[in-house]
């Protein structure tokens, strides 16, 4: 349905003043993020967000809240995630929204919610912000998955509050936001216990939930609020967040035309007839901050922050609002030395809370690029600045084309940020992931301080092709046209398989395994056929009819 009815484009920018579904309150080192979903506040018509169930609109606000806490509230060291409803924490993704959404929307919705859960874990791992899920009531499906993203889960022990992953039993799909993976990989629930839990739609309460490692504590209701507060303050003690004034994240407000989104440092050009986009990131122009004080003064206008926030928004727009764009040509423009200088300052000062957050923004945005299911080709031409953090864009691409023309020199260069400060979801740097066959090579290349010419870059394995001036246009045109004709599904699968070589992490498993299974299940008649479990859920109380053949 989402595919047949034209829908207004989804906007990812919001602000706490305009939240409809969350309340964000601050009390010293502890922030409280309270879920209070408006039933009639769905992003699209046709479903009610009952029982704190969520859709993309709810999650966009959650994502924004995580960002605000990071940048605007350096005094916050712990966040309590709770619910404004009496007996419900969160009922997970809204089933009627899922059932009425087209496949691409569903997949992108799940991908975004997964990225937001990982952003919570990233804030805990890198930024000294600890998260407590305070479950005052039923936490089912995505509700429990949200709790799983937190450092600790405290459950009210009142005979009612429970945790459950009822997707398999009730809906014929998976808990697709990391639930299965986090139960066994993060909370280390024994696999047979996890099997029982995931087949138990009514879930688990109280002591058993603790015994099974599904929650950290079950606390009597009369002591619950106080215990949550105390635990949050306790966790806050271990944080190095300094306090002081934060950095306001101003709206990035691009100029939008029918064929382009123009940001200050990024332009997303759309050629819908050819199903192609051009994504250009421009390097810094004016002087960039070199001390913590200068960073704070520049605030949201620092290039390193602003450019990557813009790139992030452009990627989300592309994913959700431009479904038919198949190939993205990645460009950069500017002075590579300016990029290297900006990178150098970020690398050197990353012990400072704000610079650390900027680095985090770069890291997460580049991961978002890795996880964007479009063909990504980098075109390295004269006037480009594929250096350091911006060269990561080329390393993220499925292929890179670098012009090799003595008359119009091109160069790429590594920086201090290339050595592992911007890891992929597999835990490796993009260089390491690239040279799995020759692990020492990444280190050797990093020792070289200067630029690589096209020939050198090709020799070093940093780019895919280096056509000369005569071949360039044809090579690129052919590569694009050849790609245009291929099945978009097969390309998505092929690219995702090839991009994430090397070891697995919880994060890579969530995307690589779980999402893949989920996306397969989401297409199957057993879930979405006329008699499939997801289609029938809540409609007429009808039993699903399954194709019993196991694959």
């Amino acid at each position: 349905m989402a595919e047949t009815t034209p829908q207004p484009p989804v906007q990812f920018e919001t602000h706490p003043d305009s939240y409809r579904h969350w309340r964000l309150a601050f009390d010293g080192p502890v922030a409280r993020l309270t879920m209070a979903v408006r039933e009639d506040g769905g992003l699209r018509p046709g479903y009610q967000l009952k029982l704190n169930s969520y859709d993309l609109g709810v999650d966009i606000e959650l994502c924004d809240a995580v960002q605000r806490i990071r940048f605007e509230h350096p005094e916050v060291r712990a966040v309590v995630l709770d619910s404004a409803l009496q007996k419900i924490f969160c009922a997970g993704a809204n089933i009627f929204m899922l059932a009425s959404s087209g496949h691409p929307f569903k997949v992108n919705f799940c991908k975004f919610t997964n990225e937001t859960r990982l952003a919570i874990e990233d804030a805990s791992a890198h930024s000294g912000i600890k998260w407590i899920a305070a479950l005052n009531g039923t936490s089912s499906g995505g509700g429990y998955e949200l709790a799983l993203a937190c450092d600790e889960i405290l459950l009210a022990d009142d005979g009612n509050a429970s945790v459950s992953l009822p997707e398999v039993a009730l809906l014929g799909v998976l808990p697709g936001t990391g639930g299965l993976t986090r139960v066994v990989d993060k909370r280390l629930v024994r696999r047979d216990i996890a099997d029982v839990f995931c087949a138990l739609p009514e879930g688990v309460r109280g002591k058993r939930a603790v015994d099974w490692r599904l929650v950290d504590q079950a606390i009597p209701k009369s002591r619950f609020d106080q215990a949550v507060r105390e635990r949050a303050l306790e966790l806050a003690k271990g944080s190095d967040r300094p306090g002081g004034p934060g950095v306001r994240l101003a709206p990035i407000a691009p100029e939008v035309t029918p064929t382009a989104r123009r940001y200050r440092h990024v332009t997303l050009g759309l050629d819908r007839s050819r199903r192609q986009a051009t994504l250009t990131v421009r390097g810094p122009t004016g002087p960039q901050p070199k001390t913590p004080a200068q960073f704070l003064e520049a605030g949201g206008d620092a290039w390193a922050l602003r450019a990557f926030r813009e790139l992030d928004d452009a990627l989300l727009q592309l994913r959700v609002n431009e479904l038919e764009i198949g190939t993205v040509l990645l460009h950069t423009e500017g002075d590579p030395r300016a990029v290297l200088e900006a990178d150098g300052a970020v690398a050197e000062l990353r012990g400072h809370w704000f610079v650390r957050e900027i680095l985090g923004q770069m890291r997460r945005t580049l991961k978002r690029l890795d996880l964007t299911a479009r063909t990504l080709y980098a075109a390295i031409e004269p006037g480009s600045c594929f250096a350091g953090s911006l060269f990561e864009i080329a390393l993220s691409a499925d292929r890179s084309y670098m012009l090799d023309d003595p008359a119009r020199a091109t160069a790429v260069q590594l920086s201090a940020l290339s050595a592992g400060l911007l890891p992929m979801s597999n835990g490796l740097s993009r260089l390491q992931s690239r040279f799995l066959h020759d692990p020492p090579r990444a280190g050797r290349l990093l020792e070289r301080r200067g630029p690589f010419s096209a020939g050198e870059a090709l020799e070093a394995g940093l780019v895919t092709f280096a056509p000369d001036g005569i071949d360039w246009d044809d090579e690129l045109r052919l590569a694009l046209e050849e790609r245009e004709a291929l099945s978009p599904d097969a390309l998505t699968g092929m690219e995702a398989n090839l991009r994430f070589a090397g070891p697995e992490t919880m994060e890579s498993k969530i995307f690589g395994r779980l999402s893949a299974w989920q996306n397969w299940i989401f297409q199957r008649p057993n879930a979405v056929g006329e008699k499939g479990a997801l289609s029938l859920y809540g409609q007429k109380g009808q039993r699903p009819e399954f194709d019993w053949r196991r694959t």
Partner: protein
Amino acid sequence: MSMVNDEKIPNNVDLAQDKRLQRALEQWQPDFLSWWREMGPEGFQEREVYLRTAISVTTEGWAHYDYVRMPDYRWGIFLADQVPGRTIGFGDLLGQPVWQDVPGEHRGTLRRLIVTQGDTEPASVEQQRALGHCCPSLYDLRNLFQVNVEEGRHLWAMVYLLHRFFGRDGREDAEELLARRSGNPDRPRILGAFNEPIDDWLSFYMFTMFTDRDGKYQLLALAESGFDPLSRTTRFMLTEEAHHMFVGETGIGRVVQRSAELAKLSKNGNPREQGGIDLETVQKYLNLWYSLSLDLFGSEISTNAASFFGAGLKGRAKEEKFEEHVCREGAVVMEIPEQGRLVRREVPLRSAMNEVLRDGYVEDCQRGVDRWNKILAESGLSFRLRLPSRRFHRQQGVFSGLRFDPDGRQISTEEWAKRQDDWLPSASDRSYVKSLQPRAIHERGKMANWIAAPAKGIDGQPVDFEYVRLD
């Protein structure tokens, strides 16, 4: 010697031969008795009460009257007789044989249904435990205890199902039924309405009239279940539930009758001047308990209700009276709030099953109200009691969170705050009603001033019979 035998526990479930059930009950029964002593009627455990005990399901056996001390009451386990060849009467499995064992795929759902029903039984005993100290007569005191012991037996009925059919999980659930406590913030009873104390007799009558009648409708719906043991258990419980509603309906009828008498004695026509309860206050209590009880049916549009129906777990009250039993097609037109205003919407019939059940309940309540109004008419008073709109004062379902007056008109939060005390018992109404019941009336045949005597006694005994031996 084991307390678990046919003599101590009258039953028709072949307890003597069922080792597993015996073992489970041997564990549970002592806990039940300590729960009864701790949370049952306060101050009357050693008194002999003229109680009805079910000793079999036959016409003679289900109502056996005698004096008994409540802790010695023989809580039994009875299922209505099995109907040979019974088939599932509704939903997707219409016409298939009923289940004698729990189907694995519905195990969790059935357990939850049984536990939710079972939890209300001890809860109401806990809510009512202090009422004995302010009873309006020995007759009423006995009725209270009858209701209490039968709620206890209904707990046994649900625990039987849990023990017999749900393995270890069922045994744990049965223990938890005794561990939760009405009104305890840490171990509350499952449903909100069962966590408020009932500490005056007008509330008790309202509870037995309206809240126990919700119980009746839930039991009627479960009596249709494709899980035959549940159906048979609830069918037998319904015979006992009828007495509870009798206590409520006649109790309110007697209050109404007495209020009419006292109104005539008063110069201003106000029973309060004569130490009675004015009809406006009765109406407010009615508004409160009726709306709380409507909530117990669940939301007007319910995914759960739809799947219970589709799966053959919970039907409609008296399913055989409906023409069509699959209900995959069809819709119910409801006025429901959207974006803050009421709009007419077609709700698929299965998703509207809570509302269908509520329809029957509302009609049933109206019959009681009509009978009270007949008393008023015969007394020559113009005041009439009435049921408020279903939208009034709801805390569950689609109307919760919005404000409506008793006529169902939507009003603002400010107006609600202003008018609330006109529609629901105010703090001063409550303290007035309680002030009428400062002590228990223990003299045989005597009634408190605010309530009329019943038309007749229990089990053919006179009204001034010694229903509870207090000496």
